[in-house]
């Protein structure tokens, strides 16, 4: 893409008084008047369709285009804005931005990422295709790719808040007839210290709103921070403890009916006919039964009744083209592709891997399909109110979901209202990147229409959740390395059947003189979705297992071996050294029969190293303890970052030990938590997290800790003589 738009800071008077600032890029600038129209039409009271608003009482509202799924994005955004505006923490409030085009963040990403810096990593993928289907930036209100704080927060809201402060100061200087350099901020007032006079932000806001917007405001120096770097408490903590948070599944609409699904056996299967419709309709309080995408929906006045009836539906499924496929056949296709040099694409090549001689190490690896398994199953609610169709659901891209509803019903933006909810987990499942991710919304719409467009909530069973997810991909890889006399690798060849959109994330960081990485990849019929940490969940296991095998062949300490292979100054070196120190790292079998394994990987702008201490009991790994050293650049909220590291490690451990989605007769074999197992307290290791702080821009944290443990646990098991090369290790 050759987009070169520049950001434009915008500001205006807020309805009800006050100052609103935000940021516009390209299309959004043009769209500014739309914002005001939306505001007039849709929004109540003093909300203005800009991100940061200073109200007459000197409180500040941050409108977050990002949604909450547990990652704490709202908290971090509030801290960044409070910092730049220099206000007390009590004065800031975060609200979910309305699901309107004025709040799309596609513009921000496009403007900042494409205009201001080289595209790297996940964003290349994000910007170039996945989220911009149809090229409509204005349908994007995306939370994903560990972007909320890095891009919306750090690169845009921070600048907008700095501009607002500068405007408030300029207004105060004029009002008090003093030089702006004589003014300081104190408790949401601009204070002229020598005369003791002051004006509140709220009083200054309407004056500031008339001033030109500084386009290059000076942001605060890190030495002055008082909110950034502090562990402020997330605003949703108490509601989540007392059970009062309203998730999508809790949406209550008067007169609401409930839909449940019985799914097809085949992935993306279709139902030809319902055999016992009359019997189903005769069940208690059943209102409708209808064929929907990937199954049959039953509508009743209680979700359990609806599910009981759905489970009783007998239907004929169209013969699927993939019925002969299973995990093994798909794997065989992948292995065959790896045998064919002509199908390979080089993604990185340096030196010559064919001419090196020495001790040779070869290994093959495999990772399976994975489901997301958020605790709150997919659900969506639809109703009519005030002449519009309303939709409610938790989602990582509510604006795209709204657009899906509009498109499906043939309605325009002003005929549909969409209400985003806090999510009971998502991990990529709710990151709607296209129609395919909206299968549950599509089912809800069909069921709603079949039941006379009475208010309706569709809720998936866990079985449907497991079988109608979109999945992390299955992948295979073959590695070949050659060691020099001193044990260092002189050659590294990696051939993978795996999607590689991001060479930087797929190719090992180790400085190996001769390196060839090739890939072959074709879509299978198994639908794909981003899964927390995306491709790194695959490539980290491959690369960090193989470098460990090389260290083992070289009879070297695997942790020091990694440090020695990294270029001087590489961020991973310090994470390795920190993890070594905090774990009391020891190579080899420990006195109690356990062993340590290590993995280090950089992703989403952060570097992370994890050391796991593992025993093998009854042929199975038991992970006792994990040490995690993270360099995520500037830490906005240490407690929140620690929480994401802890959670990411458990998410990664579940994939390492248990995670597998098998394909059987063209459908998904697993169905619920008994066969799609999760780590629980009994197998959750002790976790230790250390943050390596650097006063640079913040890196991602939500996904960063996920990929490492598969390799670290496998590498510890290798010390004990049992190296797993396929996941999951237990199953």
């Amino acid at each position, binding site marked *: 893409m050759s987009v070169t738009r520049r950001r434009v800071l915008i500001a205006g008077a807020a309805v009800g008084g006050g100052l609103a600032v935000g940021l516009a890029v390209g299309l959004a600038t043009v769209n500014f008047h739309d914002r005001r129209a939306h505001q007039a039409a849709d929004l109540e009271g003093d909300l203005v369709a800009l991100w940061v608003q200073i109200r007459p009482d000197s409180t500040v509202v941050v409108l977050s285009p990002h949604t909450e799924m*547990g990652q704490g994005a709202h908290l971090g955004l509030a801290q960044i804005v409070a910092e730049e505006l220099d206000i007390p923490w009590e004065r800031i409030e975060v609200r979910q931005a309305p699901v309107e085009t004025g709040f799309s963040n596609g513009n921000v990403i496009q403007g900042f990422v494409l205009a201001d810096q080289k595209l790297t990593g996940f964003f290349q993928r994000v910007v170039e295709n996945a989220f911009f289907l149809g090229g409509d930036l204005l349908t994007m209100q995306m939370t994903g790719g560990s972007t909320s704080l890095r891009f919306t927060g750090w690169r845009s809201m921070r600048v907008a808040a700095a501009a607002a402060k500068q405007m408030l100061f300029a207004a105060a200087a004029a009002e008090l007839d003093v030089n702006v350099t004589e003014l300081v901020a104190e408790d949401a007032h601009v204070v002229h210290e020598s005369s003791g006079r002051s004006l509140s932000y709220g009083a200054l806001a309407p004056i500031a709103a008339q001033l030109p917007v500084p386009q290059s405001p000076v942001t605060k120096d890190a030495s002055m921070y008082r909110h950034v770097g502090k562990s402020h408490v997330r605003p949703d903590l108490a509601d989540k*403890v007392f059970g009062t948070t309203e998730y999508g599944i809790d949406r209550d609409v008067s007169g609401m009916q409930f839909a449940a699904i019985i799914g097809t056996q085949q992935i993306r299967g279709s139902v030809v006919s319902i055999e016992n419709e009359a019997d189903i309709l005769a069940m208690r309080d059943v209102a409708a039964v209808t064929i929907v995408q990937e199954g049959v929906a039953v509508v009743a006045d209680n979700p359990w009744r609806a599910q009981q009836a759905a489970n009783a539906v007998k239907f004929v499924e169209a013969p699927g083209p993939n019925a002969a496929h299973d995990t093994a056949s798909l794997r065989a296709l992948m292995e065959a592709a790896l045998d064919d040099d002509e199908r390979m694409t080089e993604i990185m090549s340096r030196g010559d891997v064919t001419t090196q001689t020495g001790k040779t190490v070869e290994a093959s690896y495999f990772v399976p399909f994975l489901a997301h*398994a958020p605790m*709150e199953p997919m659900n969506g609610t639809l109703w009519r109110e005030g002449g519009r169709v309303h939709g409610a659901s938790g989602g990582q891209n509510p604006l795209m979901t709204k657009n899906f509803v509009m498109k499906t019903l043939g309605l325009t933006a002003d005929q549909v209202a969409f209400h985003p909810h806090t999510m009971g987990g998502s991990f990529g499942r709710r990151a709607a990147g296209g129609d395919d991710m909206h299968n549950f919304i599509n089912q809800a719409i069909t069921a709603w229409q079949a039941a006379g467009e009475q208010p309706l909530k569709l809720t998936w069973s*866990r079985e449907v959740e497991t079988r109608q997810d979109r999945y992390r991909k299955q992948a295979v890889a073959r590695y070949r390395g050659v060691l020099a006399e001193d044990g260092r690798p002189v050659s590294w060849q990696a051939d993978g059947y795996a999607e590689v959109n991001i060479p930087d994330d797929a190719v090992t960081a180790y400085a190996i003189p001769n390196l060839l990485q090739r890939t072959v990849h074709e879509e299978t019929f198994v639908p794909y979705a981003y899964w927390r940490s995306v491709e790194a969940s695959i490539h980290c296991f491959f690369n960090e297992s193989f470098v460990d095998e090389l260290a083992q062949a070289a009879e070297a300490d695997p942790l020091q071996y990694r440090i020695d292979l990294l270029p001087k100054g590489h961020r991973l070196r310090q994470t390795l050294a920190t993890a070594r120190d905090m774990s009391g790292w020891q190579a080899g079998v420990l006195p109690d029969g356990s062993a340590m394994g290590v993995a280090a990987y950089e992703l989403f702008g952060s570097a992370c190293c994890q050391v796991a201490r593992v025993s093998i009991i009854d042929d199975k790994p038991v992970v006792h303890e994990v040490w995690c050293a993270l360099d995520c650049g500037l830490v906005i909220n240490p407690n929140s970052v620690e929480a994401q590291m802890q959670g990411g490690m458990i998410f990664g451990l579940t994939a390492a030990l248990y995670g597998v989605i098998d394909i059987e007769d063209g459908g998904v074999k697993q169905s619920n938590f008994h066969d799609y197992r999760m780590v629980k*307290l009994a197998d*959750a290791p002790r976790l230790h997290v250390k943050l390596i702080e650097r006063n640079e821009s913040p890196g991602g944290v939500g996904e960063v800790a996920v990929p490492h443990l598969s390799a670290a646990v496998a590498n510890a098991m290798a010390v004990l003589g049992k190296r797993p090369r396929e996941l999951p290790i237990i199953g």
Partner: protein
Amino acid sequence: MPKLTVNGSEYEVDVEPAMPLLWVLREELGLRGTKFGCGKGLCGACTVHINGRAVRSCILPIASVGEAEVTTIEGLGTAEAPHPVQEQWIRHRVPQCGYCQPGMQMSAAAFLAGRTSQDDMAEGPDSLNNRATVTDAEVAAAITNICRCGCYERIRRAVVDASKEVS
């Protein structure tokens, strides 16, 4: 028509005897703090107390509840009067997405209460001080709920600290 006592209030509900308690609570009584996660008693998101014991309400037919006392997250504590488990949940900042946390806290509260009364019977009140704090292993054995966000480290610390208060 089945009668039901929930959080100290009595209700009459007109539902099939087989309907699980979870759906009666959520949809007949509007108590939506108790969550649906799996429908098979596997994840514990739906955990409530029946006469003080932790039970997975998604597989408990309403007919088998009878006159027992049902307590849900709405009856465990409030912001003004939190249960010791909730105090520790806040102190340790346990929740991420938060969806499993009502069930998780109900499991923790029942575990701690049950443990205290068992000790009381088995060893007499004098032994309580010595055994006031639960161990990590006891917590892990007692609480089998799933938290997909992986908040277990904080859950464990919160339960251990709450055990000091509950006993």
